[in-house]
């Protein structure tokens, strides 16, 4: 049962892969900001520095290293560069540098990893500096040409003005000279105060919308190369099982079929002229599997094993503690205890996983949608066996990522197939069924919570005991700290980006790690999703157990957590917590912290027949420190309730005979527009820090609705998803 899949990583892949995955920059970040040698973009236009290319017609090309998967990072990062560059926003376009180019230039663009809601918050400083540096060089070039002091020149809207004489020029006219200048000294580069922003901080429209409305936008699945073939694959349905044999003679005569290949020790693929032919032949291919030792594992056996971890006698890692919670609970006048659980869930991005690879002994190129260009690059190097200067990854816009496309399994498979057909480009596309049954799942956990009160109903202790799967154990074992997965405590940690928002006289938060064979992964929101349900529903239970209002009860515990309290108060005020809801409508509320941002949510629901929920209204607040594009933050907040409520109502990947039972959207449902509540966002940036946006809010969706369901029915739901509790959308 404790078997797990450890990815085999070569040393070089490990260095790039872990750095790219954001565990800190393992190799030095050496970002050049211009210099005497002019570097040119593919069209011949000069780079002012790695972030900014300006064409003679004044078009500004801003380089974006992070991946766009719908979250708006591409537009947000461009806003930050453009703000400091003082360029004409209407002339801005963007392009992705490739990981190969970055590696060849000593990681000129830094980290490509786009996960953990880090896209903007961990690169905002150096991309803004890139914009500011480019502006200073452009202005210097104009001053040199005019033979005037640079201090007499200003830049705005891509135009440079010599104030005393009124002479003007544009960026496109001076860029050749600017590109030859040495960049200014670091100390001379001053970034703007966000209160002076004109482009950043504003709800400008996204830069990538038009092609998404006409069908022109090219996703990985749409790649077409001359002579390209298509591959469909089958991986052993039982995780950890092996491919024993297959009878290719049975399908080689089928229309369009070119080759049947062993992809790796658990996967076979059919390559054909079209994907439909490949898939048709694959379905007819006789395959024998060695299902291995996991073939009897079920959701029930996993649940039983996890339940054992709730026993305090079992070993556990301690993630947060103060005082002596166990002693306080033992001596309590009143004790409240509850057990919650959270299932496996699939990312189910709309675009099934795919990658196109072209291998020759001299070069291996891959075209794919990836959240982690450098990890994909490392995967290409490792699978092809070619050195970095002979590998390349061409990134495309992602049809959803949600964490799944931070993995590189599909890239490795595509290269493995292409390597067996040198000179022929092959596009590997997973079916929806492959995607559903070979995911890297939101990990499974259970949680026992115990609260203690004294005789005056003062809360004296909280004990949170999580039992279940660690993501890092499988995905990034080097990030474990003496075996402990610190990410398991997201939202429950003592301080930092994942800090708990309450102070308890005695607190113990621990994790009994149990790793079933089902591969886990980072799933939008990751561990705050279940941790917020555990903590915020249980806090609600504690409040009700002593007859206190859930907001008033929380406020008493939050005096030392002003930012957490501020978003809770913002939601309470907006939803009208102090006034009764409309007749037949019930409210739930919660708050949490993740990815450096503070979030709170409230739901207004009605319930018919005890089990049909109509979510009328959601109010959600976030304090991400700084706001780059308010409209995009509103969209991430609203979208978080689609992802989060889909997970709450429908999300469950069950295990039977060692494999995932669900196969498509008919068995793994997702919310539709009819089920979508009105979402009201309250964005309250307090400044001074940079928090994430794409993920934090998801975690308040479920507890807000679950707490409202209790208010409506008196029934406490402690198990996700609701469909398995016979509860549905009305």
């Amino acid at each position, binding site marked *: 049962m404790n078997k797990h899949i450890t990815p085999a990583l070569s040393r070089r892949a490990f260095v790039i892969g872990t750095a790219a995955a954001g565990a800190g920059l393992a190799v030095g970040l050496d970002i050049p900001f211009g210099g005497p040698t002019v570097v040119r973009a593919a069209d011949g236009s000069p780079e002012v520095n790695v972030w900014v290319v300006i064409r003679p017609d004044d078009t500004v090309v801003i380089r974006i290293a992070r991946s766009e*998967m*719908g*979250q*708006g990072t591409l537009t947000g990062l461009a806003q930050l560069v453009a703000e400091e560059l003082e360029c004409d926003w209407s002339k801005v376009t963007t392009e992705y540098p490739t990981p190969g180019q970055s590696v060849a230039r000593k990681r000129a663009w830094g980290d490509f990893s786009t996960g953990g809601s880090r896209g903007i918050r961990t690169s905002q400083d150096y991309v803004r500096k890139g914009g500011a540096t480019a502006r200073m060089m452009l202005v210097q070039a104009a001053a040199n040409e005019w033979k005037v002091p640079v201090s007499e020149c200003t830049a705005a809207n891509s135009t440079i003005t010599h104030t005393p004489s009124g002479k003007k020029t544009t960026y496109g006219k001076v860029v050749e000279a600017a590109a030859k200048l040495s960049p200014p000294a670091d100390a001379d580069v001053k970034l703007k105060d966000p209160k002076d922003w004109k482009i950043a901080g504003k709800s400008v*429209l*996204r830069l*990538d*919308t*038009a*092609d*998404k*409305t*006409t*069908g*022109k*936008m*090219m*996703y990985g*699945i*749409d790649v*077409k190369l001359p002579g390209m073939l*298509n591959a469909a694959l089958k991986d052993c349905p039982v995780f950890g099982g092996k491919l024993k044999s297959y009878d290719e003679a049975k399908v080689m005569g089928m*229309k369009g079929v070119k080759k049947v290949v062993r992809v790796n020790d658990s996967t076979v693929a059919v390559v054909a002229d*079209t*994907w*439909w032919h490949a898939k048709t032949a694959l379905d007819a291919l006789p395959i024998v599997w060695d299902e291995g030792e996991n073939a009897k594992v079920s959701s029930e056996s996993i649940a039983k094993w996890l339940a054992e971890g709730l026993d305090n006698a079992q070993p556990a890692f301690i993630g947060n503690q103060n005082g002596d919670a166990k002693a306080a609970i033992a001596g309590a006048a009143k004790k409240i205890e509850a057990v919650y659980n959270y299932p496996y869930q699939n990312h*189910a*991005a*709309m*675009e*099934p996983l795919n990658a196109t690879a072209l291998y020759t002994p001299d070069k291996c190129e891959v075209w794919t949608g990836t959240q982690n260009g450098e990890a994909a690059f490392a995967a290409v190097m490792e699978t092809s066996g070619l050195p970095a200067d002979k590998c390349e990854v061409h990134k495309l*816009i*992602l*049809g*959803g*990522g*949600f964490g799944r496309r931070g993995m590189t399994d599909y890239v490795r498979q595509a290269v493995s197939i292409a390597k067996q057909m040198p000179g022929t480009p092959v596009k590997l*596309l997973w*079916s*929806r069924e492959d995607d559903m049954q070979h995911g890297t799942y939101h990990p499974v956990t259970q949680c026992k919570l115990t609260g203690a009160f004294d005789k005056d109903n003062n809360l004296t202790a909280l004990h949170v005991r999580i039992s279940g799967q660690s993501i890092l154990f499988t995905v990034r074992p080097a990030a474990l700290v003496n075996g402990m997965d610190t990410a398991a405590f997201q939202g429950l940690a003592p301080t930092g980006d994942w800090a708990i928002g309450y102070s308890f006289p005695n607190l113990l938060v621990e994790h009994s790690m149990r790793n079933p064979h089902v591969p886990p992964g980072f799933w939008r929101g990751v561990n705050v999703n279940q941790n917020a349900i555990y903590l915020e529903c249980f806090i609600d239970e504690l409040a009700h157990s002593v007859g206190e209002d859930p907001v008033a009860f929380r406020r008493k515990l939050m005096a030392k957590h002003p930012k957490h309290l501020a978003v809770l108060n913002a939601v309470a005020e907006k939803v009208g917590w102090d006034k009764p809801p409309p007749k037949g409508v019930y409210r739930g509320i919660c708050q949490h912290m993740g990815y450096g941002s503070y979030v709170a949510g409230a739901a207004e629901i009605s319930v018919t027949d005890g089990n049909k929920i109509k979510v009328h209204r959601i109010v959600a607040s976030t304090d991400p420190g700084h706001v780059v594009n308010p*409209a995009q933050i509103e*969209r991430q907040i*609203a*979208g*978080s*309730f*689609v*992802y989060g409520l*889909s997970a709450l109502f429908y999300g469950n990947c069950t295990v039977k005979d060692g494999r995932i039972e669900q196969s*498509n*959207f*008919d068995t793994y449902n*997702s*919310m*539709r*527009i*009819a089920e*979508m509540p*009105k*979402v009201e966002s309250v964005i309250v940036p307090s400044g001074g820090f940079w928090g994430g946006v794409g993920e934090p809010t998801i975690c308040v969706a479920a507890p807000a609705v679950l707490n409202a369901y209790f208010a409506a029915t008196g029934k406490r739901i402690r198990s996700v998803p609701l469909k398995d509790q016979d509860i549905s959308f009305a």
Partner: protein
Amino acid sequence: MANLTINGKSINVDVEDDTPLLWAIRENVGLTGTKYGCGIAQCGACTIHIDGVAMRSCGISVSEAVGKQITTIEGLAASDGALHKVQQAWIKNDVPQCGYCQTGMIMAVAALLKDKPKPTDKDIDETITNICRCGTFQQVREAIHAAANA
């Protein structure tokens, strides 16, 4: 071999009769704006119009589409290139996130507005059943009303 009429053009497609129309459109005709999402007519990413009616192209065989007017997202704009009012509303309201489901969503909405030029929220709820995992529904609803009032 089947003769299809796609976006007003007659096209001979060399596929088996039972090939799903989705794959003929994407792989044989080369129009990739119509997306594969599930293959079982659940998600709506592959929505096209057949004789003006929104249909999920993964669930229709090529032989069933012969002799019918097929419109894909590439054929939704007017012949002079002017975008359909739904596409315009989508751009103005900044609807797409990842955008992968949006071409199917736009085709479904264009058909809705043809039947019901001023749809109510209830009409939208009953007709638009496409899946969007990014969660653009709030903007989709706003943009449908905006397009209806354009």
